[in-house]
């Protein structure tokens, strides 16, 4: 898979990381279009107003904590501190899963409030946007599982290749983290 990468590179940034940024731009467009649709539909009236369940703020906190844990895990990895690296990786991953659990709780709360998936579009949008975001977090968790497999399955060694891999996981994770905070703010203030 790395047949072209090691040789004629021009930029400081690794091509795979660049590709990841391009992918993030693409994902961003997906959410930007959903939020624009939200705005356009909102402006048309017949819009049910409701307050976002507080659990969504908790989930944002969980996500931020997870991001921070992974960030330090990466720093310890680079410092060759195996124990802290593994510990924080586990904590970060568990928080990641916890995020999905809290999101699920959020949907339950919405339901309990009488905001249904197939009700007024104002509610449907919240389900659609948070659901699509959760799907992206799920993808992130898949990469975290890969990272865990690498951490515990392979002999500990700091190589350029592993650094790049870990960094990509981290960038993506920060990305979905910030994305959720943006989406939450959007849905509150709109």
């Amino acid at each position, binding site marked *: 898979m790395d047949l*072209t990468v090691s*040789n004629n590179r*021009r930029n400081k940034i690794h091509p795979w990381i660049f590709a990841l940024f391009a992918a993030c731009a693409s994902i961003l467009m997906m959410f930007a279009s959903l939020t624009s*649709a939200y705005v356009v539909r909102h402006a*048309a009236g017949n819009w049910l107003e409701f307050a976002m369940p507080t659990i969504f703020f908790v989930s944002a906190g969980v996500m931020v904590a997870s991001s921070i844990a992974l960030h330090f895990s990466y720093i310890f990895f680079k410092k060759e501190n195996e124990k802290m690296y593994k510990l924080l990786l586990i904590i970060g991953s568990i928080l990641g899963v916890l995020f999905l659990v809290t999101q699920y709780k959020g949907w339950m709360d919405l339901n309990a409030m009488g905001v249904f998936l197939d009700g007024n*579009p104002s509610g449907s949008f919240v389900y659609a946007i948070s659901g699509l975001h959760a799907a992206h977090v799920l993808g992130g968790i898949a990469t975290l599982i890969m990272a865990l497999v690498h951490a515990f399955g392979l002999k500990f060694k700091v190589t350029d290749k592993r650094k790049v891999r870990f960094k990509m996981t981290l960038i993506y994770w920060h990305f979905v983290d910030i994305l959720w905070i943006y989406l939450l703010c959007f849905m509150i203030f709109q």
Partner: protein
Amino acid sequence: MATTVKTAPGEINEVDQLIEKYGFDDHFHDHHDEDKYKSNFLTTYVFSQDHKIIARQFLITGIFWAIIGAGMSIIFRLQLGFPHESMAWLKPLLGKWIQINTDTGMGTLAPEFYYALVTMHGTIIVFFVLTAGLSGTFSNLLIPLQVGARDMASPMLNMFSYWFFFLASVVMFYSLFLSTGPFSGGWTAYPPLSALPQASSGSGAGMTLWVLSLVFFVVSVLLGGINYVTTVLNLRTKGMTLWRMPLTIWAFFVTAILGILSFPVLFSGFLLLTMDREMGTSFFLSEIYIGGQALENVGGSPILYQHLFWFLGHPEVYIIILPAMGLVSEVLSVHARKPIFGYKAMVYSIMAIGFLSFIVWAHHMFMSGVNPFISNFFVVFTLIIAVPSAVKVFNWITTLYRGNIRFNAAMLFAVGFISMFISGGLTGIFLGNSAIDIQMHDTYFVVAHFHIVMGIAAFFGMFAGVYHWFPKMFGRFMNETIGKIHFWGTIIGAYAIFWPMHYTGLAGLPRRYYSREGFETFRHFGDVSEFITIAAILTFFVQLLFVVNFFYSIWKGRKQTTRNPYGATTLEWTTPIIAGHGNWPGKIPTVQRWAYDYGKDGREFVPQIVPLEEGEHDGGEGDH
């Protein structure tokens, strides 16, 4: 200078010497020879990660779909041109979609199936042929070869890009055989026809498979596009500055950016659409009665879908045409033996077109009830697109002016492209005025516009590319005589089909109607319609010449004996005739000058690998 580049295998020639002297050694072959990529038939030809093989896979799949898509148009044109002739003879092919009147024995095309054919024709040609088959093929073939890279940034994702396209193809193909027929609500899939499974026979399983197929397709475009952008920005060889890139690369690059930014929006539209279909939401549905029964959906807006669709839809038409423009620019310059006129202006107009294409989408919705004040905004930007388009046309023509032109098949198609682009671009300016569009919208005038400017022009760009780069793909040439017959048959045929549609459209003939029999006003278009159908059938058969030529030449075409048969300057002609894995057997060539040094200082052409001489100026970069 390196003007004649003969290579018998193993022989050292000037090109090899230049690469040896100025190239750089990335030790690629030290650890990649005999590696897993070459190991067996399956990994070499099927699950290949080599961009050159993937390019051929895209092309051949595209040709397969082109035959099906064009064949469908012939069937529905028969209905339009000859509504009173029996189609019973098509019964063995189409089965129950041909309805036989038991008294008269007369066979007619089922109306639902007419709509399914029109829908599939549009979807297949737009996405599978002119997106995957065109940009998929040539971005893959040319990006690594022309920028001087061993392969794409991620060959594996590149392979997945093809296989997702393949998956999309399989799903769409399968939907053709559903008992309820494939989706039939138009290639734009507007709700409610697309959102309500009970709306028409194709809206159920047919639409489900349509969406599934296009979701796979979106994944394919994104994987491909991310790879193309990354490769262009990160893996160019030494000396290949941005201003030295051939226009093909510029075009593929901007195309890929458009794809990355617009296809996800289509995905969002599909997500909401699928939720409306499967989960009872009402994003796009409101107050609908079916058979006197009110549906529960309230509060949705079908126009919302149109915004999401056309936010992709308009960039999509440029995703189709930009690669064709890139190919044509290159072919014109090589075969006119002249530098492309206004290289930088060409690059800037590609960028301008790319940018503007994101802020004109609502010109497809002037008649959908968008606010007229908002329409004004879209009218202005739509008309502004004519400016960079005109710059490009001017530069192509000026490139030809006093050129030493070789009228081979590739060049003929490139010139034909300009003709088509002018004809179709002009009608775009009519349609871009919302006041005029109120009359023209959804008439045959629109059909004429987009078939000429997009359909035919993009096909011409693709043909020019295939004839020109065929030796690069297969080490052989296509037959020139058949190629020229193909060109003349196609350009005459295409104009014969689409030119008359301008008149019928101006007279108000609506598109997408199965029958005009019920309308007294449209009766007298019967003859025109018949003429168009005959022209379409003839043009279709002319295309079969191309298909035969293509496959015959893969095995039996005239062999390529010199490495650089056209005397071109770009890097793809410095590889061995059949380039192996990693493209260059030894070092990677470095680039010393821009891509368009034709007829410079008395030299017929100067390849990009030849260093600048004392005091010589670089055409693209200026001198630094």
